[in-house]
């Protein structure tokens, strides 16, 4: 690991100043960044440790719930307000990583973990995300874990987060501080697709800091479910995961939210399927049809074509759970 400077700002302003310097990187839980530094994938000159900033709060607002960016994944997953208002988020968090990692990982850090794959991690392999212009090792390589939506000819990696799939489904908003003040962007627009710049995972500018996410109140608590299909039951990335949330009145769907993980460079919201479900009675036939609709534009590669079947099956299964049909 390359030697680096380390600084621990005590105020948000100091942090913003520190991260605007060239070669500086924020560290919070470090569960992904330290890994990448050890493997030589990233080599920052300076780490800005923001763990002392007062951003751990989980507080109700007039319109929903604010979760500070430094709130730990483990704490959020067990928070009473989260469990009561947004159990989907708790389920998604608990599906992610391992208890040890969740004890270190923060909400902001989880959002900032790299969209990645095994070729990104191995510095002897080509990877446009790690080293633009070197090619994509996965495209014609071992791409079992890779994306089926929104890929480019530069990159087919997937965002590995479960929490982000839950937040995308719940219409969360990201609150970002910069030196010129705060801005808010919808969670679904925080991460980006690879296009011609797979080295950029999201729309956070270098001199900006995530200070929290806000989830608007909704009526999904009763009928939501996070289903993650993976090779083992803990500490494994999703083959496909689905966050499903329904607002059901008398057996008829009033509102639906669906997002998928393990299928794209970013959490993949299924807007068309959601719209189609409105006004439909809850039934497996309807869920299957919505799932098929969600697959429009999907494209498989040599080892991941199974996701073209697994994804709709998982959507259907998650919706059945959310609707209480199983």
């Amino acid at each position: 690991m390359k030697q680096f400077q380390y600084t621990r700002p005590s105020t948000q302003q100091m942090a913003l100043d520190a991260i605007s310097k060239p070669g500086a990187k924020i560290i919070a839980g470090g569960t992904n960044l330290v890994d990448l530094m050890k493997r030589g994938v990233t080599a920052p000159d300076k780490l800005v440790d923001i763990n002392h900033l007062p951003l751990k709060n989980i507080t109700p607002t007039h319109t929903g719930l604010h979760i500070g960016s430094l709130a730990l994944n483990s704490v959020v997953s067990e928070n009473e307000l989260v469990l009561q208002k947004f159990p989907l988020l708790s389920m998604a968090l608990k599906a992610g990583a391992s208890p040890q990692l969740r004890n270190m990982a923060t909400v902001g850090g989880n959002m900032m973990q790299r969209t990645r794959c095994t070729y990104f991690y191995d510095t002897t392999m080509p990877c446009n995300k790690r080293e633009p212009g070197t090619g994509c090792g996965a495209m014609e390589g071992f791409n079992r874990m890779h994306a089926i939506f929104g890929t480019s000819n530069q990159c087919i990696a997937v965002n590995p987060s479960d929490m982000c799939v839950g937040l995308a489904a719940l219409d969360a908003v990201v609150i970002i501080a910069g030196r010129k003040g705060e801005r808010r962007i919808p969670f679904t627009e925080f991460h980006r697709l690879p296009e011609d710049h797979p080295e950029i995972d999201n729309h956070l500018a270098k001199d900006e800091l995530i200070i929290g996410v806000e989830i608007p109140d909704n009526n999904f608590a009763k009928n939501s479910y996070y289903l993650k299909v993976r090779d083992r039951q803990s500490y494994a990335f999703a083959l496909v995961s689905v966050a499903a949330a329904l607002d059901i009145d008398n057996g008829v769907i009033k509102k639906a939210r669906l997002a998928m993980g393990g299928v794209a460079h970013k959490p993949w919201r299924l807007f068309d399927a959601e719209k189609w479900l409105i006004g439909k009675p809850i039934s497996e036939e309807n869920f299957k049809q919505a799932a098929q609709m969600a697959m429009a534009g999907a494209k498989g590669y040599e080892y991941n074509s199974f996701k073209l079947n697994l994804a709709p099956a998982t959507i259907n299964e998650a919706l059945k759970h959310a609707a209480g049909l199983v």
Partner: protein
Amino acid sequence: MESKILNKPIPEEGLSRVDGRLKVTGKAKYSAEYDVKGVCYGVMVGSTITKGNIKSIETKTAERAPGVLAVITYLNCPNIPGYHTDNQPDKGPLKIFIDDKIYFNGQPIALVIADTYERALFAASLVKADYTKDQHQTDLKANLSSGFSPSKAKDYLRGQEDAYKLAPVKIEHEYTLPTEVHNPMELHAIIACWDADDKITVWDKTQGVKSTQRVIAQAFKLPPENVQVTAPFVGGAFGAALRTWPHEIAAVAAAKLVKRPVKLVLSRADMFTSVGYRPHTWQKVGLGATADGKLVGITHEASGQTSVYENFTEGVVNISQLMYASPNVNTRYRIVPLNVNTPTPMRGPGEATGAYALESAMDELSYALNIDPIELRIRNHADSDPLSGKPYSSKFLKEAYQLGADKIGWSERSQKPGSLTKDGWLVGYGMGAGMFGAYRSNATVTARLMADGTLFLQTSVTDIGPGTGTAMASIAAESMGISPEKIRVELGDSALPPSPTQGGSQVTSTVGAAVFDACKELKDKFRQLDGGADSTDYTALLQKNKLQKLEVTTASKGSAAMNNYAAFSWSVHFIQVYVNPNTGVVKVNKAISVADAGHIVSPKTAASQIKGGSIMGIGMALMEEAVIDHRYGRLVNNNFADYHMPVQADIPQVEALFVNKPDPYLNPMGAKGMGEIATIGVAAAVANAVYNATGKRIRELPITPDKLI
């Protein structure tokens, strides 16, 4: 009255691990944990190409990095006299740092020595090599045609060749097992410390201190007694530490060069290319039977990968020669040299691979015949060894079938696949059997009774986790009639009396028998002191005779009568799975393993060993798979995030059952080994249960969700 109690010093459920407290409190010291004065640290640099030559290697930057003492490559490696001037790839273990040739990706090309681990690690990242690349081959399936018959495993024929093809009912299928990499919890580690120019102490992760002593002595041309190898605790090994690997020789050479003790701990990524693996193996099994389920013929073919410098050979097809009473059997085994590191035995070596195919094929045949899989096995039960014709020393496999079937509720199983459901999940039952030779070799044990009543037992065998020390204490406590708290077991040091390497399911039989014999001899000595009486008040006897201690060193071996019998341990594994019909997720809901391993000397640790073996088999069936990107010849999942083995959430309460009937011939305890049979047959049981649940037969492990949707 009192002596009666003393003669039953072991509780019914067996002793708890004698070293359990040390292990859970962190006081058990493993190889990397010894505090050796002046120690420095080694980090290996691996080749990033798969076949070719090192054109140039830049070490200057690394050498100038802070704290670096040496960067060892083939250009400056001190002479290792035992290597002679042999050129690779003369068949034989990989000789490290002797020339510029690269045989596999990850092959060590440099060893960086620095005053701290972190500095060594950093400097290792600065070593850069340029290579001349040759076309490599890493893909087994693409290279099956270059397989050859190794000298140690010739083709076998009993009766008529390929007789199954003529049988009224026949099946023929191919089965593939991917590479499974050795990943015991403890990383391989060595501290090498030269005490004089011709004398060295090493703390090493090894399954056999005597074998490591011999190899290091040979490599450095030292008298064996000048090499002391210590491994009192080993954090799992499963075959990975059966042999002395290049990194161990490198650490010893490096310590000589820098004139300081060197500690070398492999990283987890290093483990994937340094300590062997269960090789990727393709198999084809043909079974033919009469309509009433009598086997007519078995044909079993296998091709497993090996390296280009060693012919790694294992008993993949042997189980088909031995398991069932079939008049016609033929087997063919090939090895395929590839640009990979050499495989090494992994628990149930070969047999576990072979049993996956044979026991899957037996299951397929049972459906073809519409006969219950247990019933099919009973109809083909071998009453004597089909290979040698000899009677078995003991075999209670039929009882094991019954015990396991009752326990799992086999009667609930449906012979029609896909017909049982619960809460929206498909439910299936499967079973698979296993067998492994029951051995006894030679061992010597010192038993020393001290004035305070403490009994010391000493022998050089290592305890890699099965509970060897506990079994020895149990045998001695029973034999001497003393409390196990009074017994101290000292193991894992080459200075102690000779014992075999821990492996091949032979240690309880061999070393246990030596403990038994030593205790018998010690008791005889006490009896002589006591004028022929039989007191177990040893302290009183010592006091009366003004002795500080009484000790014997006893060499023990099996009797010639053993040659008249075929000796095997047997197992059968029962699995119940739930399979999600939509997502293909498999959950093992029940796992029951039954062992016919003779008299169970140490019930608690035996149960633990069976459970561990079952979990290993479940991992083999459902998740373990090392993946090579053949374009580069390089592993793409050499870490615990991407290489999956089971975690707690995947494993139900595994139950271990024992027939627990003594083998009358093998050793005085009546015990047979069980390390291997714990895993052999499990993967087939899981695959068979998945078929029973879904009607889908997965012949290419691991059975991941994508294969079931």
